[in-house]
């Protein structure tokens, strides 16, 4: 059975972003979501380091290193961009002004708890804006492979890794399914057509509930 690529997961997540939505994409993999805005829709992207409404990456060699995103990658301005300082930036985050934040995850619990900043006490801990982003955005979505590289479930009953936030995730887009977090339960919304419910459940660390239709998770070749 072929699972979705990271690019395809990002594509799927992008389909749920409304025209005009204010969106923060976590650094790394989630940044890919910006590429797949459906035709006719234009989200406005926020980055923690003080830009709203920035544009795509510039051509290599034409970067301006005062114009970067939270992942320290060069971006561009476009009509309607605004600059502001860090306290105003996180007022946008914490104050509930973002429509969607899309983040990566190590683990998501059925309660909506998220672990995505620390793999334990070894090494140098680093949190950045993750703990702020999980609070405030109207929807906090996660994009992730359904299981770890070792095949262990990432959707779990209780997170074992240090938490980023309690009860904060509302939807998870995985390589196999789209799952909502609702009243402390995982509710399956979409799954790959080739995958049976039981197969999916066996790769999930907590009970998957069904509430209404389960659609086929379909994405283009990318």
């Amino acid at each position, binding site marked *: 059975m072929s699972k979705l690529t990271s690019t395809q997961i990002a594509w799927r997540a992008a389909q749920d972003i409304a*025209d*005009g939505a*204010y969106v923060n994409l976590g650094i790394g993999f989630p940044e890919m979501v910006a590429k797949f805005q459906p035709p006719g829709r*234009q989200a*406005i992207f*926020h980055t923690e380091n003080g830009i*709203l*409404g920035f544009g795509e990456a510039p051509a290599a060699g034409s970067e301006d290193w005062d114009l970067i995103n939270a992942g320290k990658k060069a971006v561009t*301005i*476009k*009509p*309607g*961009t*605004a*600059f*502001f300082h860090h*306290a*105003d930036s*996180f*007022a*946008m*985050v*914490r*104050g*509930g*002004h*973002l429509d969607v934040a899309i983040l990566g995850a190590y683990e998501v619990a059925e309660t909506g708890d998220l672990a995505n900043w620390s793999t334990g006490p070894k090494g140098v801990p680093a949190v950045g804006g993750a703990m702020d982003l999980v*609070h*405030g955005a109207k929807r906090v979505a996660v994009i992730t492979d359904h299981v770890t590289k070792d095949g262990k479930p990432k959707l779990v009953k209780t997170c074992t890794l240090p938490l980023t936030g309690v009860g904060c995730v509302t939807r998870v887009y995985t390589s196999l399914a789209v799952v909502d977090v609702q009243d402390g339960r995982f509710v399956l919304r979409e799954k790959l057509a080739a995958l049976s419910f039981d197969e999916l459940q066996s790769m999930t660390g907590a009970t998957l509930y069904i509430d209404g239709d389960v659609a086929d998770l379909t994405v283009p070749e990318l």
Partner: protein
Amino acid sequence: MDKTLPDLAAAVAGIEDGMTVMIGGFGGSGAPIELVHALIDRFLATGHPKNLTVVNNNAGNGHVGLAALIEQGMVAKLICSFPRSADPRVFTDAYLAGKIELELVPQGTLAERIRAGGAGIPAFYTPTSFGTDLAKGKPVEEFEGRAYVQERWLKADYALVKADRGDTLGNLTYRMAARNFGPLMCMAARTAIVQVSALVEPGSIDPETVVTPGIFVQGIVQVANPAQEEDLNRANARYPEDAA
């Protein structure tokens, strides 16, 4: 994504009975006279909205703007720092007659409570008002040997704000000291409605000079030559005009 509203009537159409409405301005500077008068027009035509809680630094002056809103009996409660003005009769009479409730807040605390509402900070500590009547009933805590009063955030259903230039995404600049509470109220309101002297296309405002980023603005309406409250009062204006 275009936040432009067709006219002033549309701009104030969503304000319902009992809502909390922040109104920008410090005295007359920054007072969104046309938005407030549009709200009065709606009330005169429909009887709504009423029982409003209004947040403003002052309590109106003369018989226009906020004073006219109070004069119509639309305001049940006012949260402000300084309910005095050159001509405060409308508020004073309503207050002394028990027709309007007053929550008096020190000006800096008012500003910070509004910012806190916009920034997702439910409470903070300030030295302001410690040991005074305005701190009564509020938690007090000591930090580094000094006593502070706990104050709570202030949010609103609507903000009515006057800016100078605005683009269709809601990015705003203000004019001199008319800035005052505008940027904070845009942050703290679920729906911030802004009247601008000039409505421009995105890209017309230098990103470095945006004071209120568009994320804090839900609706924008152009009022090309806005009235200045002070000028209206010097001309003894009333709103509506036939109320004289």
